């Protein structure tokens, strides 16, 4: 009896493991400024960030954030541009970008909606909320909904961060309104935004339910 082990590219038993790389190429070195055009705005932003630290490598996170703002995601092209300005290899910056949740290494919709589904929020129905938001935004390539770990706003649970704006507590029947606001580039649910919320500590202890 003989078994034939299924082999994929380069003799590997694991399919698609090398999708991200082209093994026929040499490892990328620090990009050559002569052949790597960098948008002036992006270059200025990265250079300003580098100037703020004793070691310019500390600007890796701000640089990747700038790349994401300019390109919509941390694209290989964008990472190469940042690597060119920072005099690092693209591999170094890719390694950093893949570590952090807020950097997208795949193209995504331009609106980022993070729904917190951690303990405090899920106790207040965040899992259902996340599902409903995903359904309401389904098929819209502009809206990127994803569940996120604790966003640090358990007082307004269940909540979501819409392009960095904290909104909550979101009722299930407000989901359509929220998605509508996002689609039309309006501020999301203005009455429910965190920045307007008074501190719980200053409110009178009148026994009223404020959750």
């Amino acid at each position, binding site marked *: 009896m003989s078994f034939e082990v299924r082999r994929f590219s380069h003799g590997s038993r694991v399919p698609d493991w090398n999708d991200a790389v082209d093994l026929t190429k040499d490892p990328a070195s620090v990009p050559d400024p002569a052949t790597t055009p960098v948008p002036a705005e992006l270059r200025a932003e990265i250079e300003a960030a580098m100037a*703020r*630290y*004793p*070691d310019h*490598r*500390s*600007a*890796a*996170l*701000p640089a*990747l*954030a700038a790349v994401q703002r300019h390109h919509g995601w941390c694209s290989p092209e964008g990472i190469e541009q940042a690597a060119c300005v920072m005099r690092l290899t693209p591999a170094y910056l890719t*390694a*950093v970008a893949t*570590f*952090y*949740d*807020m*950097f997208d290494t795949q193209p995504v919709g331009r609106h980022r909606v*993070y729904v917190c*589904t*951690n*303990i*405090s929020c*899920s*106790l*207040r129905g965040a899992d259902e909320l996340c599902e409903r938001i995903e359904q309401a935004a389904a098929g819209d390539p502009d809206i990127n909904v994803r569940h*996120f*770990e*604790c*966003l*640090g*706003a*358990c*007082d*307004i*649970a269940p909540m979501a*961060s819409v392009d*960095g*704006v*904290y909104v909550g507590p979101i009722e299930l029947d407000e989901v359509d309104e929220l998605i509508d606001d996002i689609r039309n580039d309006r501020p999301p649910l203005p009455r429910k935004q*965190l*920045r307007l919320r*008074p*501190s*719980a*500590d*200053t*409110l009178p*202890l009148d*026994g*009223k*339910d*404020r*959750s």
Partner: protein
Amino acid sequence: MEKLLFKDIDEPGLNTIDVYRRRGGYESLRKALAMPREAVLNELLASGLRGRGGAGFAMGKKVSFLPKGAMDVYLCCNADESEPGTFKDREIMQKNPHLLIEGIIIAAYAAGANKAFIYIRGEYVLQADILDAAVKEAEAAGFLGESILGSEHSLSLVVHRGAGAYICGEETALLDSLEGKRGNPRLKPPFPANQGLYQGPTLINNVETLSTVPFIIQMGGEEYAKLGVENSTGTKLVSVSGHVKRPGNYEIELGMRSRDIIYGLAGGPPDGRKVKLWFPGGSSSPVLTGSDEDLDLPYDFDTMAKAGTMLGSGAIIVVDDSTSVVDVAYKTAYFYRHESCGKCTPCREGTNWTVKMLERIKAGEATPMDLDIIASVCTNIIGHCLCVLGDAMAMPIGSMVQKFRAEFEEEIERRREEAWAATVAPEPELPLIQGAVA
């Protein structure tokens, strides 16, 4: 009790330097700069202020550990508040950023640091913008930069935004991330006080700790130490969330009865519900039950440690009896699996397998033996990793299995029966013909 950190927190414009100064802001800085460095340090030591980020290490001691001599000393403010249930630093930074900046300048003076960083989590966009604006204002007013208020002390302050990683709240991972690397924790020792950011001595403190410093200088360390209880001095912000009527941040004097926080301030669970369990210090702390004995514990560092848990970041998450303990354990473990950086094996594998076992329980495929395996995984994580992220999963999960074992076993049984009922094949419509199959 008189509020310190949250005094008039909702005053309009408190985040601007004009309003802050009109209320006596930056006066503590003036007072501190007129004192010799050692005197400021002595005030911090006398105050007994313990770190508010989670570990509860005495701040004055931390400052005194920094080596003396001519070298670059750094100060990092840990504003990567990602501990589930914690949101106190967010409120300080959003509403009173200058208080934090003043605290940083004074602490940097005591530590002899000339470069300071605020590492704020990337999700806090609004708060980071407010801090950026506040730093600019403070620079323009001469509180930051060269020779502050005519003294020898100079300080530059940079707001550094993270990009979404819980592990970067761990002090050495924070340093790696600030150096532009993946946020992996480092082996300790050397501790950051000796070798931290850019290999230099580094003081790392939480937002709330640093924001308390101006009050210590203003009141005097000994006066501050009169607040609270012995070994847990001062006031503390507690973030109460979960099944309570009035979730939010409350400033309390340490040593307050836990029941008065959960029921008195936060309104307790919804009507008709009882507290089943609560996390006293963020999701990393072993849970306490809703028994009178646990609810009557005074809320301070030492009492919580004696009760087998910890005060942590001061985040109380309340779970009422409508929720199954299995679901709480699953959510907790899932979070740590997601956030484990993968550097050490016990944490990377232990969190993963704990989640898988809890998934088995949820799917009705587990036996009570799985609970013993979970408990043994937990004991094998604790103390065996570079940082405490693995411990932070093992401690609450271990305590839940220990304290709610009966409920776990009941759930395992119930879900197994449910799963069984759902998978039993329906009776075949045609009678089987005996002997038809050879």
